[in-house]
C-alpha cells in the first residue's frame, strides 16, 4: 500500500516497516493469533463441531441433521477468524510536546509514528483498529474497524493532533477501559509521568476485561539522562510552572527517582501480565518496534 501523504506513515518509512511487517507478520500474526485464538467458537466458514443448544442461542445455526439423528438440539460451531480489536491509546497532553535536547524529535510525533505503525499492522492482519486520544479528557474515541478506509481515517486523524493541556492518565484511561470491548488489545503511548491510584484502577479494569495491554513509555534523551549543565530553568509544558535549579547537583536524584518510578510501573504491569516498555526517541522508531517484537517473540 502506498501511503504517500501521511505524515506518520511516510513512504520512506514503509520500506523499513516492510521488514518489520514481515517479522511482525510471522510474529505478530502468530503472537496475536495465538493470543486471540478464541476459546469461544464463533461463526465462520469452517465447521468446527456441535454443542448443545442453550436457551437464547440463535436457531440460525441449529444443526438440523443432528436434531434429526438424535432428537436433541445442537448448535453448529465454526473456527473463528482472527478478528482482533486493537486500540491505540495516545497521550496528547502537553508533556508529550517535549522535544529532545537537539530539538529534532518531539515525543508526541514519535508516539504517532509508533501508533501509525501499529494501525498499519492491524490493517494488514485484517484486524480492527481504533484510536483513543486523551489529555485531561478523552478527546478522540474511534471505534475499532478493519479495512483501508479506517486506516486512512486513523492516519489522517493522527495528523491533526497537537499535544496540549494537562495530563489525567488515570481518569482518561479508566474511561477508555470502560469503552473498550473485552479481550481487545490496547497499546498505550504516553510518558507516564503522572501515575496515580486511578491509573492503577484503570489497568486493573482492563485486566478484568481480559484485554492485553502494552504500555509504551516514550521518553527523550533529556528525560532519560538529564544532560543539562549549570543553572537551568525548567518550564512545565503542561502547567507552565517554572523551576530554577542547578543541573549537576539535581541530576543524580532525578535519575534515581525516575528509575524508581519506572520500576514501580513495571512491577504493576508485571502483576497484571501487561508489557511495559520504555522507548527513547533517540532510537529510530522502526528499530524500537523491531526490538520490541523480537522481545515479544521470545516471550510467546
Amino acid at each position: 500500500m502506498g501511503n504517500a501523504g501521511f505524515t506518520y506513515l511516510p513512504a520512506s518509512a514503509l520500506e523499513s516497516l516492510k521488514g518489520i511487517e514481515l517479522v511482525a507478520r510471522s510474529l505478530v500474526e502468530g503472537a496475536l493469533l495465538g493470543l486471540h485464538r478464541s476459546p469461544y467458537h464463533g461463526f465462520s466458514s469452517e465447521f468446527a463441531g456441535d454443542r448443545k443448544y442453550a436457551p437464547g442461542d440463535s436457531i440460525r445455526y441449529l444443526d438440523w441433521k443432528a436434531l434429526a439423528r438424535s432428537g436433541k438440539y445442537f448448535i453448529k460451531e465454526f473456527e473463528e477468524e482472527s478478528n482482533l480489536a486493537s486500540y491505540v491509546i495516545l497521550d496528547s497532553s502537553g508533556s508529550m510536546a517535549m522535544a529532545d535536547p537537539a530539538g529534532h524529535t518531539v515525543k508526541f510525533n514519535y508516539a504517532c509514528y509508533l501508533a501509525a505503525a501499529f494501525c498499519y499492522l492491524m490493517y494488514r492482519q485484517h484486524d480492527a483498529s481504533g484510536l483513543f486520544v486523551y489529555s485531561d479528557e478523552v478527546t478522540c474515541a474511534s471505534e475499532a474497524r478493519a479495512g483501508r478506509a479506517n486506516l486512512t481515517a486513523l492516519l489522517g486523524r493522527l495528523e491533526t493532533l497537537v499535544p496540549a493541556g494537562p495530563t489525567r492518565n488515570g481518569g482518561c484511561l479508566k474511561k477508555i477501559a470502560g469503552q473498550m470491548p473485552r479481550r481487545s488489545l490496547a497499546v498505550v503511548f504516553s510518558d507516564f509521568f503522572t501515575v496515580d491510584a486511578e491509573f492503577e484502577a484503570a489497568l486493573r479494569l482492563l485486566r478484568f476485561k481480559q484485554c492485553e495491554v502494552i504500555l509504551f513509555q516514550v521518553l527523550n534523551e533529556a528525560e532519560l539522562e538529564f544532560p543539562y549543565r549549570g543553572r537551568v530553568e525548567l518550564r512545565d509544558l503542561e502547567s507552565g510552572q517554572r523551576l530554577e535549579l542547578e543541573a549537576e547537583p539535581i541530576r543524580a536524584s532525578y535519575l534515581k527517582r525516575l528509575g524508581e518510578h519506572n520500576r514501580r510501573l513495571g512491577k504493576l504491569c508485571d502483576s497484571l501480565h501487561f508489557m511495559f516498555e520504555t522507548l527513547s526517541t533517540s532510537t529510530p522508531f522502526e528499530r524500537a518496534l523491531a526490538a520490541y517484537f523480537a522481545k515479544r517473540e521470545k516471550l510467546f
Partner: protein
Amino acid sequence: MIDFGASLWLWLLPPVWGAALVLHLYFRRKRQVVPFSDVGFFLRDEHHPAMRRKLRDWLKLLVRLLILTLPVLAMAQPRLTGMKLAAGDEPRRVIVLDDSFSMERKLPAGESAFDAARRLALSLADSFDDGETALVFTSDVPGVLPTRDRDKLREAIRAAKLRPRAATLGTALAGAAEQAGVTEIFLISDFQQSMLGKWEERRGLRIYALALRGRDDNLAVEVSGGAVLPPRAGVEQQLRVKAVNYSGRPAESRLEFRYGGRKAGERLLNLSPGESRELEFAFTPAPGLTSGSVTVEDGNVTQDNRAGFTFRAEAPLKIGLVRGEGQGADPFYFLRYALDPGNDGGRGVTLETLGTAELSSDRLREFGLVVVSGGAAHPALDAYVRGGGRLWQLPASAAKSAGNGKNAKFAGALAELNDVLQLDLVEWRSPAELVPLPGDAVLLALADGRPLLLERRDGEGRRYLGAFGLRNRSSNWPLLRSFPVAMAKLTDYMASGGAKPGLDKGAPVGAESNLASASGAELRRRLPGVRELQPGGDWKLELDELRRGSALAGWLLLAALLLWGVDSYLGKEAAR
C-alpha cells in the same frame, strides 16, 4: 575599635561588591530555559522548598561577598586598637624615669644610660600633644604630678640626678598605675635584673619599656669590718675591705685607702669575673673621730667605687687596780693578762696596781677605770666616783651567794657580747648576791635572773658592782677564749661610759652593684604586659604602631580562607 593604616584601599570595596553582585546576577540570569514534561516530578520529593533554596542562594552571595571583602580589608591594614577612651576622656600618661646608680653605666655610643634616659623622657614629653603627663622617679625624689605644663615636666627631667634607688621597678610601676585615669606608662630604665621586682599585668593599661642596656661591668668596694678589740689611739688597727668584680670579664684596678685626709695605702687588684676579695689595711688611729675611705677605679658605674668610714679611737686607757685586804692570789692576774698580755701597753691599755696609801683624788684621776677587789673601800674611791670616775667593784670573798649559775646574758649596749659568750659554757661559781637599787642597770644576769653585774650612778661617775671575781675561783671564764675580748669590751664600756668607739662604716650599695640587665624575654616574664621599644631604632614609629593596636590583616585573610571552605562545603551539600 578598628583603625585602618591604609584606608585608601577601602575605596576598592564598592566596585568589588558591585562586580560581585553583577556577576552573581549574571550567572543567575545566564541559565538555560528547558521546556520539560513534568516539573512536578522534581518537586514531588523535593526536600528544600523554594524559599529555603532562595535563602541559600542569598547566603551564598553573602559568603562570596565576604570572601572578596576580607582581603580588601586586610590590604587596608586594619588594627584593633583595644582600649577605647570615652568621649571627652583625655589620655593620661606617666613617665617612670630610673634615676638609680646603675643608670650611670655607659651605653655603646659613650653617653651614660641616665643621659640617654633624660633625652628620651624629654622627647616623649614633647611628643604628647594632649592629655596630662606625670613623672615618677625610682628613687625617693618626688616626681611631677599629672600636668599639662610641658615646661614643668622638662625642667624636672633636666634636674634629675642619680640617687640611691628607693624601690624596685615593679613597685614604681604599681605606683604609676595607681594614678587615676592613667592610660599609658613609659618605663625608661636599664632594667637591672636585681631591681625588677614584681608586677601583675593590668588590663586596659599600655606600658612601654625603653630599655637602655649598656655596659654591665662594675667594680664595687665596701668596708667589711675592723678590729675586734676596742680601738685605742696609737694602737695599730686593721681595716678589712671587700672588693667585688660584678661583671663577666676579669678586672684590673687599683684600690686606694685614705685615712685622715691622706693616702694611707694602695693595692693593685686583679679580679676574676664575679670574684670577691677581702683585703686589709693597717693604720694607727689618732684619738677621737677620724674619717677615711677606700676607693677602687672603675670606668663604668662609680657610685659604688668608694666606701667611706669613720673611726673613733679612744685615748689609751689606764686602769687602776686596788686590791682589798685578805686577798691571797693576785685577783687581777687574768685581767692583766687579758688586757695587756705583753705588759707593755701594746693594746692601748695599761694596768697599774695601787696601794691603799696611794689612793687620792689626784692619783685616781689618772685612771679611766679603777677596779677594786675584795670589797675594798676608801673615801678617795668614793670621791673619785662622785667626781666622774668609773669604779668596778669586785665582790668580797665572804660575800653571800645563792649558789652556782649558768647561762648568763649581757643586756643593753653590751648585748653584742652574748654572741661571744654563747661559744663558751661559762659557769659561775657562787656569785655574790647583788641587790639592785632603783636606778641601777643590770648589765649581766644569770638565766634565773640573779644579777652578776650592775651599773649604778653615783654622782658624776659610775660604779659597776660585780657579783663575780676575775679569777677562776669565781668562774671558768678567765680560762675561756672569750675572756680577753669580753674584758676589753667590758672595761672599754665602763671607762667610756657607753660611748662606742670603733669603726662606723657606710652601707654598701648592695644589689645595685650587680649591673646585669634583664633580657627582653626576662623582662616580659617579670613585668608581664610591658611592650619593649628599641630606643636605638625608630621607636616613635614603633610606638605609633603599637598604639594603633594589633594587626588584623592576618586574621581577615584566615577568615576569608575559612569562608571559602564554607562556600565549597555549601556547594557540596547542595549537590548531595
